[in-house]
C-alpha cells in the first residue's frame, strides 16, 4: 500500500494526456474532476468532454496503469456526467498550449442567419494570429473540434468548440 495525499496523486496523473491532443493533460482539459485518497484507497473521478468521446476508455486505462506503476493497487475510476463538462474548465495555460499546438479556441459558434452558415467570435488563427478566419465545418477531426480556415495565411486549422 502506498501512502499519499490527494495532491500527490493529482501530480502523478499529470502524466495522463488526452490521446487526441497530447499537449493537454486530463487536468488541463477539465476531464479530471476529483482525486480522493482515503485509507490508502484512491478514487479518481472523470467526466467525458462529449457523450461519444472515444478517448474516455483509453484515458481510463492510462489512469489505471499510472496508478499501478506507482504502487497503487486499491483504486477505482468513476465517470460522472453532472455537472456537464464545459470548455470553461480549461485552464489559461491549457489554452496557450492548445494555440502553440495549432488549435484555436475555445470559441463559441453561432449561426449567422437561421442556421445557414456560422460565425465564430474571436477565432484567431493559431499560425499567423490573424482574426480574418472563417468556419468550413462545425464538425472537425474529433467531436470537440470544428474545421476553420484562415483568410490571411490560407492555412486550415482546428478550433476547439466552446461547449
Amino acid at each position, binding site marked *: 500500500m502506498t501512502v499519499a495525499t490527494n495532491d500527490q496523486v493529482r501530480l502523478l496523473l499529470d502524466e495522463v494526456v488526452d490521446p487526441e491532443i497530447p499537449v493537454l493533460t486530463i487536468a488541463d482539459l477539465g476531464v479530471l474532476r476529483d482525486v480522493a485518497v482515503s485509507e490508502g484507497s484512491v478514487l479518481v473521478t472523470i467526466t467525458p468532454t462529449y*457523450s461519444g468521446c472515444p478517448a474516455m476508455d483509453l484515458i481510463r486505462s492510462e489512469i489505471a496503469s499510472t496508478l499501478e506503476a506507482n504502487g497503487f493497487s486499491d483504486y477505482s475510476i468513476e465517470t460522472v456526467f453532472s455537472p*456537464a463538462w464545459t470548455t470553461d474548465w480549461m485552464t489559461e495555460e491549457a489554452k496557450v498550449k492548445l494555440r502553440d499546438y495549432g488549435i484555436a479556441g475555445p470559441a463559441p459558434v453561432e449561426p449567422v442567419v437561421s*442556421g*445557414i452558415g456560422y460565425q465564430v467570435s474571436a477565432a484567431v488563427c493559431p499560425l499567423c494570429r490573424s482574426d480574418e478566419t472563417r468556419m468550413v465545418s462545425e464538425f472537425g477531426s474529433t467531436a470537440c473540434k470544428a474545421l476553420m480556415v484562415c483568410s490571411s495565411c490560407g492555412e486550415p486549422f482546428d478550433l476547439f468548440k466552446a461547449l
Partner: protein
Amino acid sequence: MTGFATMTDPAAAYVLRHGDDNLVLAQRLSEWVSLGPELEEDIALANVALDHLGVATHLLGHASQLVGGGTTDDDLAFQRTEREFTNVVLVEQPNGDFAHTMARQLFMDAYQRLLWEALAVSEDAILAGIAAKAHKESLYHFRHTSGWVVRLGDGTDESHTRMQAAVDNLWRYTGELFEMDDLDRQMVESGVGVDLGALSGPWLHAIAAVAADAMIALPDEVTQRGGGRRGFHTEHLGHLLSEMQWMQRTYPGLEW
C-alpha cells in the same frame, strides 16, 4: 441469454427506450460514413452518429445497472431481439436520399432538444446528468440539420422537391414521439420522466420555423404510425439489427 421482454423494472425500461432511440439512430447515421455528399458532411454525420452512440452507451449502461444481475450495456445492445427494442419507429426508417436523412434528423433533433432539457431535472440523478450533457449536443445537431433543411428546401427545384417529399414521407412517424403510455405516466408521477405531450407544441413551433425558412409546407393531419415503444416495428429494424448484431450473435461475448 434469457429474453429481455420480461424486463419488468419500470425505471430500466424507461431509460432503455430512450437509449434505443439513440442506438438505432447512431447505427443509421453511421451508414453514411464514406458515402456523405461532401467530405465535411461525411465527417459531420460521423460526429453526430458518435454523439448519439455515446448517449446510447451511457443510457444502456445505466439501464443495465438498474436491471442488475450482471447484465451489461453490450448484452442490451447485441442480445435483444427486434421485439425487445423499444425505439420509436422514426429512427429505424432507412436513410433514403440525403433529404430523408436530414428530415428524420430534424424531427429527432428538435424533439431531443426538448426531451433532454426536461430530463435534465429528472429525479434519477444519473439520467439527469446524461440528459444535461446530451442537451448541449442536441443544440449543435439541430443547428447543423436545420441549416441543411433550409439549404435544400430553399435551393434548386430538384432539392426542394426532394426535401418536401422527405418531410411528407416521414411526418407519419412523428406522432409517436409525443405518445404517452402507462410507463410514461408512471415515470412522470415518480418525477423521473417527462410529460411528452407537453413537448409537442414547442416541437411543432421549432419545426414550423425551419420549414418556413426552407419554403417547405408541413403536411396536414395524416394517419400516424407508432408501436415502436411496444416492440412493434416497421420491417426496417430487423435488417438494421441483423447487420449491427451479427458479430455478437455469431461469436457471443467476443472481445478484441
